[in-house]
Every structure is written in C-alpha cells, then in structure tokens.
C-alpha cells in the first residue's frame, strides 16, 4: 500500500506542473536521441576540423585541411558522381513511380490494399539482401548473361556489374517504394471532379495532366523526390556491392576513411558535407512545399 501512497504523491506533484509532466513522459526520448544521436553528430563535426594523428588517431589541433582536400579533382569527381547518380535515380523513379502510383490509386478498393502492401513490403526488408539479389542477376556468370547466351544474343558475357548503370538500377530498385508511397497518398486525395471539369472544358489528356493533375499532386512529387534523393546521396551498400571501386560515391569514401585508410578526420569532413547536403535538401523542400503539412506528407 505504501507503493500507492508514493505513487499518489508523485502524481500530485506532477499534476500541479503540466510542463514537468510532459517532460517526464518525453525525457527518455530526449535523453536517448540527445546523447546517442545529436551529441555524436557534434563530435563528428568537431573531428572534421582536427588533424589526423598517427595510427588512425587524431591530434587536437584545428585545421581546414580536411575540407580543402575536396578541391582535389579526385574527390570532386566523387562528389559530382554522387550528385549525378542521386539526381538521375530521382528522375527515373519519378517517371516510373508516377504512373504506378496513379494506377494503384485508381484500382478497385479490394485490390488497392493488396497492391499497396506489396509496395510497403520491400520498404521494410533488408537493402543489403535486395542489393545482393541483383548481384546474382548481373554478374558475369549471372542470370541475365546466362539467359542472353542461351538465346544466342551474345557470346561473351557483358560486364554489367561494377558500373554506374548497375548502381542506378540498384538504387531505383531499392528506393522505388519511397517514391510510390507519397505519390500514391497525394494522387488518392485528388478530386476527380476537377479532372472531369478540365475535360469538359476541352483540355486534351496531355494538357489536363500537366495543368491539373501535376499541380494538384505537387506535394507527393516533392515528398517522393526528397525521400529518394536523400538516401541515394548517402548510400553505401548499393554502390559498394554493385559499383565496386570504379564508381565510388561519398558514402564509400566515408567508409574507406573509417576503414582501411584510417583517416577519421577526413572521413568526418566527407560525412559532414553529406549531412549538409541532406539538410539543405530538407530545408529546400520545406520552403518549397510549405512547412508542417509537408512534413506530414513525408510520413
């Protein structure tokens, strides 16, 4: 019974202070995210301004060098490649994902849930395994080359793996659900009477799509693009397994510095640049798409 007495006293205390009560409920999250997410990011930022020490350590001396190294054509090339691949992935998925989302949104209700679920399913399954599956298909002795040989289309295997094209394919594969889900959400809300109105007023299907459907589903287009672009910029697994050493992206550069190269400050700087790109994309999106509702859309 003492327990309930204590409980009552604690409750009474909290009842008088709503702010404290909310803090009590939220404190585990504040603690965990604060200490194990935000604080490490701060440490990483600090590291990016330190000198590299011997044997992978750091010297606590300030330097810009880790950032100025990016002027080197070698690293500029990696940055540019990362942008090119991420941008292309986003555009490809927009072109593929829009019709797909449109069709799902217009499907019979009983089919719609199943179709949606089939998009959500890969979203939650391992990227590593889904990328590995493409290795089985694309490698020199893989399924695709085997098939082409069997059909006498080729004699020598095509080198499909370890190319930029393979990375693009892998990224499009892994992130297709990220594009389709927000697009679906906005297309489903589309008021079809507006489309009928456009048709009645003589709009051809093409202009109706461009002038009515696209503007009305802008939020989904922006959200989907953001959700594809962000993880593509930071990708590591897909480019590592399908691109290899020939087509390095920022993520692979970071991994290299924290792995074999043992240059943590330089890796931190690369990682910080990556984080900055992501945050700029998010803020740009929020500004374009308009604040809080836009955040809801992404979810």
């Amino acid at each position: 019974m003492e327990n309930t007495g204590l409980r009552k006293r604690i409750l009474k205390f909290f009842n008088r202070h709503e702010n404290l009560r909310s803090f009590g409920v939220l404190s585990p999250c504040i603690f965990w995210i604060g200490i194990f997410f935000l604080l490490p990011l701060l440490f990483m930022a600090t590291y990016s301004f330190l000198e590299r020490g011997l044997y992978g350590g750091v010297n606590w001396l300030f330097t810009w060098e880790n950032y100025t190294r990016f002027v080197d054509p070698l690293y500029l090339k990696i940055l540019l490649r990362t942008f090119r691949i991420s941008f292309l992935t986003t555009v490809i998925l927009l072109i593929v994902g829009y019709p797909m989302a449109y069709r799902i949104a217009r499907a019979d209700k009983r089919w719609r849930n199943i179709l949606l679920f089939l998009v959500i399913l890969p979203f939650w399954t391992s990227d590593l395994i889904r990328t590995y599956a493409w290795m089985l298909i694309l490698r020199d002795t893989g399924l695709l080359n085997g098939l082409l040989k069997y059909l006498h289309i080729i004699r020598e295997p095509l080198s499909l793996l370890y190319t930029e094209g393979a990375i693009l394919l892998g990224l499009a594969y892994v992130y297709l659900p990220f594009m389709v889900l927000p697009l679906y959400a906005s297309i489903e809300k589309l008021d079809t009477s507006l489309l009928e109105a456009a048709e009645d007023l003589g709009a051809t299907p093409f202009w109706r799509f461009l002038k009515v459907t696209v503007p009305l589903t802008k939020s989904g287009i922006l959200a989907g693009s953001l959700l594809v672009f962000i993880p593509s910029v930071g990708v590591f697994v897909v480019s590592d397994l399908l691109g290899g050493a020939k087509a390095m992206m920022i993520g692979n550069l970071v991994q290299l510095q924290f792995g074999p190269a043992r240059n943590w400050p330089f890796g931190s700087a690369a990682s910080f640049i990556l984080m900055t790109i992501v945050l700029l994309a998010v803020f740009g999106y929020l500004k374009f798409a308009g604040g809080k509702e836009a955040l809801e859309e992404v979810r």
Partner: protein
Amino acid sequence: MKVRGFFQPLTWFTGACYLFLYLPICVLVAFSFNTSRFSVVWRGFTWEWYIKLIQDPLVLDALKNSLIVAVVAMILSTIIGTLTAYGLYRYRFRGKTVFDGILFLPIVTPEIVVGISLVIFFVLIHVNLGLKTIIIAHVAFDIPFVMLIVRARLQGMDRTLEEAAMDLGADEWTTFFKVTIPQLLPGIIAAALLAFTLSFDDFVITFFVAGVGSTTLPLKIYSMVRLGVSPKINALSALIVSVSIILITIADRLQRKSV
C-alpha cells in the same frame, strides 16, 4: 477515368513494375534451392545449402547476436517511442515543433553518418564496441519509427473514452494504462514488430558500431558476399527475407484493424 481496364497500357506498365520489385527476390529464393553450386542453370532441388547453414557455428552465433540485439532494441524503443507519441499527443509545450523536427532527423540522416558519428562518440568516451553499442544505436534509430506508428494510431483514437474515464474519477495514470494503452495495443505491437525487423535487418549502422565477436546476420552476409556469391548466402538471405515478410504482414494486419 479510363485506367481500370486490364488491357490498358498503364495496367501492364504497373504489372511490370511489380515484376521488377519481386523478380530479384524470387530469383534469390529459387537459387537457394538449386543443386548447382556455380552455374545459373537449374540442376535440381536441394535442401543442402540450408543444412550447411544450420551446421555453421559462425552463422548460428550471428543469429544469436542478431536476436539479442533485435529483441532488446525492440523492447526499449517500443517503450520510449510509445511514451514519446503519447507525450506529443497529450501535452502542449514550448518548442514542440522543434522537438518534432529533431525526431524527424534520425529518419533523414544517412545511415553512414549515424554510424561513423556513433563510432567516434564511443571511442571518445572509451566504450568498447560490442552488442551493447549496437543495441544503443538501434534503439536510437527505432524510436522515431515507433513514435510515428503509435502516433498515427493515437490520432485515430476515440478521445471520449479517455475523457469518460477521467470523469468517472480515474487519474491520468490509471486512464493511461487501463484505457489508452489497450486502445493503442494493435498499433504498439505493429510498431514493435517493425522495430524488430528494422533492427534485425540493419547493416550500415551495425557495420560501424559492432566490435570483435559481435557479428550479426547482416554483417555475416556482407562478409560472405565479399568472398563471392554462394548458394549458402542465398539460403541465409531467403530465410531472413521470409522472417521479415511474416513480421511485416502481421504488423500490417494490426495497423489496419480499426480502433
């Protein structure tokens, strides 16, 4: 809108997209039962690779590690995420928008950034890398997902039941445990299952914060892949994908259940 017909190009296009989504996984599963070790040609059905898998002590060890990490991370993140969702739903306070934005950060931050920042952090505070550090990292990225799922449930919840309980004299504590939690339960279980899946499947962050002797299944797969494609990897991958599919299906059913 004439897009419904079976013979419409749009329908065919969408069908092709689904084929694109699922064909590689089907190939993977099919190969895991193929007798032939190196060739892509089908030479007959076998369980051999699965049997080899369960006889490999390193794989079993990785499975044990993965289960420990995923279960502990699931429990902690479900509790913390549910409390957070409730707090954000129930209370108004200054800085709520900022708090919301910060919770959004772990979702958009590239995994590799999270991984290396954590490894710097652990090294600086002299914590040895191992299962402990993996769990800490997983809880951090699971919390926002749990929060979002439970919050969606809270928004669809009938608030009058809570008010009725309070009017009948229940304090906030009792109301929370006897009225709110039971209503949220399907959502909470769904969130827990998804947190488990996320944690069980995570590779990138785990890759950085794992130490010697704390290899999880995805790490094991990665190190096997580096040595080359093998039917054993196919079998292991097929098993992991099956577990994910089962858990996600249950979670999806629970989330659809009306409040």
